């Protein structure tokens, strides 16, 4: 597998996938999030950090099963919960969602809508 690609979805605030994304539709459902209603499916989701519930690993795996998952998630600090959700999705369904940690300045430079290529080695390039 050579990696994944998708258009960046830059979130203004961190999102907990559990309570924040409906894995049946891929929609952002957190009523307190400024981008409520956005679709995460196939996008490279960019946010500073994960947040909240420890159930987010399950939501990520279920979204992979339901084919509504983001293509990848870019953060500026490691998030074990998302990393494990991705590992389990790969184990069960053969599809991983790369969870990539970038320095804050590189993350901040990504513009919403930019087409990105995420390599298997965690490299992030503009498509």
């Amino acid at each position, binding site marked *: 597998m050579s990696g994944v690609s998708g258009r960046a979805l830059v979130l203004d605030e*961190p999102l*907990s996938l*559990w*309570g*924040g994304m409906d*894995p*049946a539709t891929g929609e952002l*459902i*957190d*009523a*307190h999030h400024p981008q409520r209603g956005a679709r995460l499916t196939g996008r490279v989701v960019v946010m*500073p*950090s*994960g*947040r*909240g*519930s*420890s*159930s*987010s*690993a*399950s*939501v990520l*795996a*279920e979204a*992979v*099963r*339901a084919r509504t998952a983001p293509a990848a998630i870019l953060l500026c*600090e*490691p*998030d*074990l*919960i*998302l*990393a*494990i*959700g991705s*590992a*389990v*999705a790969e*184990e*069960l*369904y053969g599809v991983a969602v790369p969870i990539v940690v970038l320095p804050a300045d590189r993350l901040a430079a990504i513009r919403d809508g930019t087409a990105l290529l995420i390599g298997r080695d965690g490299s992030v390039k503009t498509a």
Partner: protein
Amino acid sequence: MRLVLRAAEATGATELIDVSGAHVDSCLYHGEASLDFVDRLVDGGARVGIPTTLNVGAVDLIHPETYRGDPRTAERGRLLMDRYRALGARPTFTCAPYQLADSRPSLGEQVAWGESNAIAFCNSVLGARTNRYGDFLDIAAAITGRVPYAGLHRTDARRATIVLRLAPDVPDALRDADVLFPVLGIVLGRRAGSAVAAIDGLARGQSEDRLKALGAAAASSGSVAMFHVVGSTPEAPTLEDALHSGQPNAVEDIGLAELRVARDQLSTARGDRLAAVSLGTPHASAAQLRGYAALIGERRVHPDVHCLISTGRDVLVSQPQAAGRLRDAGVELLVDTCSYIAPILRRTDGAAMTDSAKWAHYAPGNVGVDVAFGSARECIDSAVSGRVVRDGSLWGDA
């Protein structure tokens, strides 16, 4: 074990340590992936290797009639709960395992807990040590009894790096009100993110129920896995102790205006039309059940309002008197699950009122209801009167 090693890789840990207990959140159904995963474990003959409690599931197994959603989803949720029991975990089905006398790890004990509010409570209030174990990794740790030696398992990571001081304009009466704590928790989560913060400026010896509300809110608005409250949490007898005698990266004030805004943002409902009142998130403690019973006294819930309190099955059987009073008053008592993770509410055609910032945070997205946040007293008074009743005096509202 592969998952535990993957976790070690992700956290940069170079060694694994033993843990003496686990709290597993994976028993809540999020779709067929939940069952696909546990079936893999059951088929492989896995069993938990250490004492393990279970978090809430999708269904109240003792009062199954409270579930008002798709019967097939309920059946799948129940099946998942059974599967985790079959792995040897205790069917506690509570998000507050720290309220069970025999599941309270002691100061410094290494454990592996899931469920964000339980993680925050375990680290902050018990002084036991856990990282944020998400679904899948929690049961992997329970089976192997091993976790990466990283993060909050290590002493150095437990140091406060931010100090949050209550500003002088926060009135004394509010500082000593239960309703402050969930609101302060929302601010804590926003300010701290995933950092360890120390809160200064509260009276010493705050109750476990207040600290529980604070942590549950902070773990909803942020990724808070540990906090210190100077004079109340065991690793912070003094601010210097919380800082491990070091310097914080930041010292910030929290003023009344910010608290009021956070409180107002917890309410999405407009007007005073009331459909439901939901209390007990995280699961009500024995003291809270008695408190709710005392608040309602000899009054009854208004016939048009669905009033319910969530608690653990073990706490519920320990409080027959309070439970009897509450049921007589028309309150529904829910165990094993919670009213914001499953279709439980009878009505959503008006506000659902709650004293929980966590419930207020998640319910609009999860169960599609508008929320009115208030104190326990406001919630109970509203349940009785049949409309949203407010008392802004504590907050200095005009």
